[in-house]
């Protein structure tokens, strides 16, 4: 028997009546709040709340030697820290596979949208380029870290400014007004499947009983730029299309916060 079979049955029974454990409609997010400039030492930062879920993201800019295969480009990296402060289920220690997957899902939506012009991050070809490091740290996990982490990462990138750099010395204390070269605003939406039903923004309780999930990176023009399927159950192609459609629809709501 599955540990959460009873919970799953209950979620499905409620979804068939167009409702959920906390009374929301299947396609309804909890209240979303995005606040930027929350950490003064970071080049950019944002705190995101979705209901009781809360994460904080910070951008640090470093000057590095470009990768040999891309000597005229800077780079970016997303790292997710699932702090044991934020859930009894998280442990201390190096990022586990859940943290790594969350980081890579977030990284993929940003990277594949090509919103960040990495060529503009080059300072001196083959010698110096900016590396954008985005760290997202969890404060409280009440479910749907997927979308909260993405929103925080993107909001922090939009908030970021370059520190002063004279070609030799990097002055973190001295911030310029120059923003990161971002051209579009991809949004990542995760859709969850239970039986024949789909929903967005599960609570941590609902998350325990999912069959499958699909995270979709959505661009302003409605095209998609990244996908990641999760969960133990295989799903038919029509489910994927249905989940992508819902993600596209919900992305418009989330984009308003960026």
């Amino acid at each position, binding site marked *: 028997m599955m540990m959460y079979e009873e919970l799953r049955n209950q979620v499905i029974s409620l979804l068939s009546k167009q409702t959920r454990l906390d009374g929301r409609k299947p396609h309804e997010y909890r209240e979303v709040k995005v606040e930027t400039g929350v950490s003064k*030492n970071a080049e950019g930062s944002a705190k995101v709340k979705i209901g009781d879920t809360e994460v904080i993201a910070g951008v640090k800019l470093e000057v590095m030697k470009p990768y040999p295969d891309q000597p005229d480009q800077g780079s970016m990296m997303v790292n997710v820290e699932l702090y044991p402060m934020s859930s009894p289920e998280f442990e201390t220690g190096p990022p586990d596979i859940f943290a790594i997957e969350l980081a890579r899902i977030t990284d993929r939506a940003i990277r594949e949208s090509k919103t960040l012009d990495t060529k503009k991050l080059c300072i001196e070809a083959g010698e110096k380029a900016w590396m954008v490091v985005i760290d997202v740290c969890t404060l409280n996990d009440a479910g749907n870290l997927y979308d909260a982490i993405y929103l925080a990462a993107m909001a922090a990138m939009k908030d970021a400014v370059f520190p002063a750099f004279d070609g030799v010395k990097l002055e973190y204390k001295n911030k310029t007004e120059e923003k990161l070269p971002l051209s579009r605003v991809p949004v990542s939406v995760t859709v969850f499947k239970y039986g024949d039903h789909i929903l967005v923004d599960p609570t941590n309780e609902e998350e325990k009983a999912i069959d499958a999930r699909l995270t979709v990176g959505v661009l302003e023009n409605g095209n998609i730029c990244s996908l990641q399927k999760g969960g133990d159950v295989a799903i038919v192609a029509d489910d994927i299309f249905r989940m992508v459609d819902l993600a596209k629809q919900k992305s418009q709501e989330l984009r308003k916060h960026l």
Partner: protein
Amino acid sequence: MTYDKRFDGRAFDEMRPIEAKAGIIKRAHGSGWFKIGNTEAYAAVYGPREMFPRFMQNPEKGVLRVHYNMMPFSSAGERVRPGPSRRSKEISHVAQKALLPVVDLSEFSNAVVDVFIELPQTDAGTRCAGICAASIALADAGIPMKDMVCAISAGRVEDKMLVDLNYEEDSHENGVDIPIAMLHNSKKISLIQMDGELSSDDLKKAVEMVRNACDRIFEVQKQALKKKFDISD
């Protein structure tokens, strides 16, 4: 050299503005947030809960574990690499010793009380802010506790003794930083560290300054906890 006026214009015995909250991390059994100037600390308490690994269990009483960490983007300079460092391990250790004298874990044999301290933004005095937040979190979690722990640093820049050094003062080449944690009622000291050079007389002055600051910190911690249970707003 004389230090006539503090970099941020404060009086020598003046702390930076302090704010605190309790119960901000919903999944935790207790939580606290403490901000002093631009230094900001979250603390969450889980427990008493089952302790793993089992060989670390104490059959006589519960174990207090403290974990201090700076968020990667929290520091004024370069990114702090995630994961424990020698510094963060030592601070976790001394923070545990700072909190241990007030908590009574005798009822919780074999169990653990975990305290997690996370700093999203730092401007010196992080271990003290972390201990102040942790003290709020432990109280909020309903852990039996004889007293609150209040922590702040005192020190010297050039010729002047002062309280609550900011980053600029802390990193001054002719400066001394003395973080101190004090039990609010007995004024016993549960953490003291120092770097720099100091006379015994100046050390006495530093402790006296912390003693006075401690009462203000207790007041802020107390109001934060009371406010959590005030549902009028």
